[in-house]
């Protein structure tokens, strides 16, 4: 007898999907019966049960059972008899055989034959004396199927259903190669809850609408009602296309610089030592110019095209410019023509400065690009990394402006507290190292250097000394920090699972 549902149950009833409705009348039956009665496959019934479970109507349970099946050899032996049976048959035809003859006639492998012999001896069916193998049991014993043969005939079986004899046989056969395969299977079952019983006993409304169709829209009447959805039901995950997370943050940083009135510089990653080192007043015997730190390119020979600038650079290194002594060591143009992967993006700034004219001032430029170091790769090291580079060329520019630009940039990158400490770079003076305070980790992070280009840099490139505020900090550490990446290698590992799940740059 169907009862009138109470208010809470009413709500549940309106949420039942067609699939759930199909099985609700049969909830007192076991799974297999439901499948049959509802005319659904196992997967659909289980899905419906999971929906019902979410509504608190049933409780799903799983148990496991162990299934014993035949392995590859097992299947073969079931068809062609176990090797020990083959040996018996051979001996029935020719009793008292030497081992070699028995094996040859039985057409068994060395291993199969040995195993068979052991089995037959342990069952006291054969004996070996004077090198001859003989059947010793009576006819009846010989023709009776062994437990092993009985087991093979009976498989597949659930382990719990095996008799003690067959269990014994199983233990024996398990030791032999690929006769038996043991699988575990999970068996779903369910129990109906009190609430479930009430719902199952209630009358199911049949006039709830499922999908909105063009017909329904056309013929809509107020008396109709839609089935309610369970909003908590999990939906399958989807993935979207997107920019690589490193590039997302570069787009953001680029926006900061352009908002601050900076023009973007572009240039090559491969350059001559002239633009990477010499134009930046790095002495020719400086350790950074050695092979263990820099990627020089094999068999590539560059040239210095800007002869006028090169002559001035040579002079700055050897004897200095007015007011400076220079390095006082001779400068070799050949050394400057070595071709390499830029070790910093400051080569772009040097090239920009060389092209600039007095009437272009004041001018501000930035670049975000890869730089390279000949490094090993581990969690903390890599051979390529991004730098954010900037220069401000202005007669009136001074050191506190430099700090102002850097503070503004890092504030926009999310670091409120910033500290400046003295540092050294061969092409800037004064120089400064930027440290930002990490609010969660409560530590100061070193982000890299900045300074004002030395007159020995600006005089040859620009034609006269002029204040050029300059910086070039590593950018990867900021990205790592934002995404909580601990291992530098993960930045460019391109694990697609990781890329698909990675959240957007949200600053």
């Amino acid at each position, binding site marked *: 007898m169907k009862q009138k549902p109470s208010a809470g149950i009413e709500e549940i009833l309106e949420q039942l999907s067609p699939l759930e409705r199909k099985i609700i009348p049969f909830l007192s039956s076991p799974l297999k019966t439901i499948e049959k009665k509802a005319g659904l496959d196992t997967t659909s019934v289980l899905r419906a049960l999971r929906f019902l479970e979410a509504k608190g109507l049933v409780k799903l349970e799983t148990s496991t059972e162990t299934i014993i099946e035949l392995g590859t050899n097992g299947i073969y032996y079931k068809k062609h008899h176990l090797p020990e049976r083959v040996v018996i048959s051979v001996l029935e035809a020719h009793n008292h055989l030497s081992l070699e003859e028995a094996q040859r006639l039985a057409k068994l492998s060395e291993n199969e034959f040995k195993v068979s012999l052991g089995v037959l001896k342990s069952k006291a069916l054969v004996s070996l004396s004077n090198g001859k193998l003989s059947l010793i049991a009576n006819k009846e014993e010989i023709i009776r199927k062994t437990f092993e043969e009985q087991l093979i005939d009976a498989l597949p079986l659930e382990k719990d259903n095996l008799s003690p004899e067959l269990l014994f046989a199983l233990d024996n056969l398990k030791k032999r190669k690929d006769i038996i395969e043991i699988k575990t299977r999970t068996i779903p079952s369910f129990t109906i809850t009190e609430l479930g019983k009430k719902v199952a006993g209630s009358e199911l409304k049949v006039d709830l609408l499922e999908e909105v169709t063009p017909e329904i829209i056309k013929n809509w009447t107020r008396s109709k009602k839609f089935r309610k959805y369970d909003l908590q039901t999990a939906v399958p995950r989807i993935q979207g296309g997107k920019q690589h997370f490193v590039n997302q943050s570069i787009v953001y940083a680029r926006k900061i610089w352009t908002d601050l009135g900076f023009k973007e510089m572009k240039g090559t*990653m491969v350059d001559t030592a002239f633009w990477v080192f010499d134009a930046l007043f790095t002495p020719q015997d400086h350790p950074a110019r050695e092979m263990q730190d820099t990627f020089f390119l094999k068999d590539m020979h560059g040239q210095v095209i800007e002869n006028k600038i090169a002559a001035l650079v040579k002079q700055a290194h050897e004897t200095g410019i007015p007011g400076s002594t220079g390095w006082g060591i001779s400068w070799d143009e050949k050394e400057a023509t070595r071709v390499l992967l830029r070790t910093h993006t400051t080569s772009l700034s040097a090239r920009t400065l060389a092209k600039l004219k007095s009437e272009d001032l004041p001018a501000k430029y930035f670049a975000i690009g890869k730089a390279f170091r000949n490094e*090993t790769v581990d969690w903390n090291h890599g051979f390529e990394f991004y730098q954010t580079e900037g220069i401000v060329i202005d007669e009136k520019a001074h050191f506190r402006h430099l700090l102002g630009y850097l503070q503004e940039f890092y504030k926009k990158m999310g670091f409120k507290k910033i500290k400046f400490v003295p540092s050294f770079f061969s092409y800037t003076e004064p120089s400064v190292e930027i440290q930002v305070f990490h609010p969660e980790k409560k530590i100061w992070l070193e982000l890299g250097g900045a300074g004002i280009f030395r007159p020995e840099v600006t005089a040859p490139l620009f034609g006269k000394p002029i204040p050029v505020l300059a910086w070039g900090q590593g950018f990867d550490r900021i990205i790592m920090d934002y995404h909580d990446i601990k291992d530098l290698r993960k930045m460019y590992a391109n694990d697609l699972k990781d890329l698909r799940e990675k959240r957007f740059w949200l600053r």
Partner: protein
Amino acid sequence: MAIVSFNRKEIEKTIKLTPEVLECIMMLGIPVEECTADTLSIQVLPNRPDLLSMNGFLRALMSFLGKKPGLKKYKIQDSKCKLYVDSSLPKEWPYALACIIKNVHFDDAKIREIIQLQEKLGSTMLRERKKGGIGIYPLDNISFPVTFKGMHPDKIVFRPLESEGEMTGRQILSRHPTGRTYAHICSSWSAFPVFVDAKDKILSMPPILNSHEMGKISTATKEVFIEATGTDYATLNKVITILATSLAEAGGQVYTIECIQQNKKRENIPNLLPRKMKIDLEQINNLLGLSLKERELEKLLPKMGYDYQKSTVSIPAWRVDVLHQADIAEDILIAYGYDRLEPELPRVATIGEESPASRRTGKIAEILAGLGLLEISTYHLIKPEEAKRFHAPFIEVENAKTEYKLLRPNLLIPALRIFAENKDNEYPQRLFEIGTVFIQDARKSETGIAEENHLLVATSAGNFTEVKQILDYLSRMLGLSYTLTQTVHPGFIEGRTGAITFNNKRIGIIGELHPELLRASNHKMPTAVFELNLDELV
């Protein structure tokens, strides 16, 4: 950059290392690596080799803290001894400078410290001895004048430091551990440099090692002979100055030696006369964004170890980094305090602008991401084993420390690696990358290498239709049109490979990858790609 460690107890005889003092050290421009109960380790930046010795470090710190400001003066006497530099020397090693320090007290800690200083000067200023070498000897055994000369390697015979018996110059390079380490510097020279004294005894064979008999310092040593030899007179002069003043700071008495070079140049060494530099306060204020008064400079410069009077700075001889007024300006700033500086964002009207290439890259990324493609970002270097399936003249980097040794000539090679590494991740994998590739440039460019900005699109499992759809959509959205013509390309399936032409120029390739290439790349799914040169689209 060098990291040096000092005995904390020794330092604390002069100043206690409180947290405030450690902060001061950092604000002096000396990064503190570590400070434990026993040691203080600091980073010495390349401009300040005078900080490599504990005494030099303390000299700088004590004046910065205002405890001993101003230019430190050392009393110097003339030893009346001479050093002759002989023309028999190999041309690769022409110079030698030397001086004498008396009244030194070497305990074991001091000996360790002086050895550290000698090593660090050798590895930094002297570039791993390629530019010069340093030697220290007990004075007692030496008869003056001393001569620095060249001898045939087989004629040089003496007992090297810490060795059992005598060896010839050539044997030292092959048998003695220090000789083997530095053999590469001098093995090709026609003559080897040696110091010999007035009695013809060999003191050492620079820049390799000292004689055991003549050049071993012990706790009994009270007076020493110091020399520096090498390729560059000015550098050697700086090295000797730093060594001599460091020992003087520890209580030693400095005696000069008259050093006569091959070119007859004579100089009493060390020459500790301060250099004078006139500075322009207005220029300095403009550079720093400060408005310091003359009076303030008189306080600030002595904190950095200078004397200052009437616009003229007296620079101590050991401050070898000061080349220009800008260097003085930085020291003024350090003395003033970086932490006191107010950052200022100037209101300079300039127009910000993204480069056309970045703008284009951004648009293309947006279009492709809109199609559900995932962007990857790969290294610019590839492995030779990945490259061998493609024939192109590859550009190789020298002495790479990893297996990534070649510049990528296309974006397909790294993408194949990414597919292989993701073969157990969810399919379909629809990827794109926009990045730089490198090709040898026949035209006479500065580097001989041309860089192109490429776009790669690759879908797996994917087929020709799918990538052509993407190419179609992309070109429609960019308002461009292209044509395809059948072509053959290594790694692609013949008959399913097209050359992409734009403006009568071949700018790329599209097609399905050949199973052989996929299998060799350890990739299991059908894959279709296109790659084109974005620089040609402008």
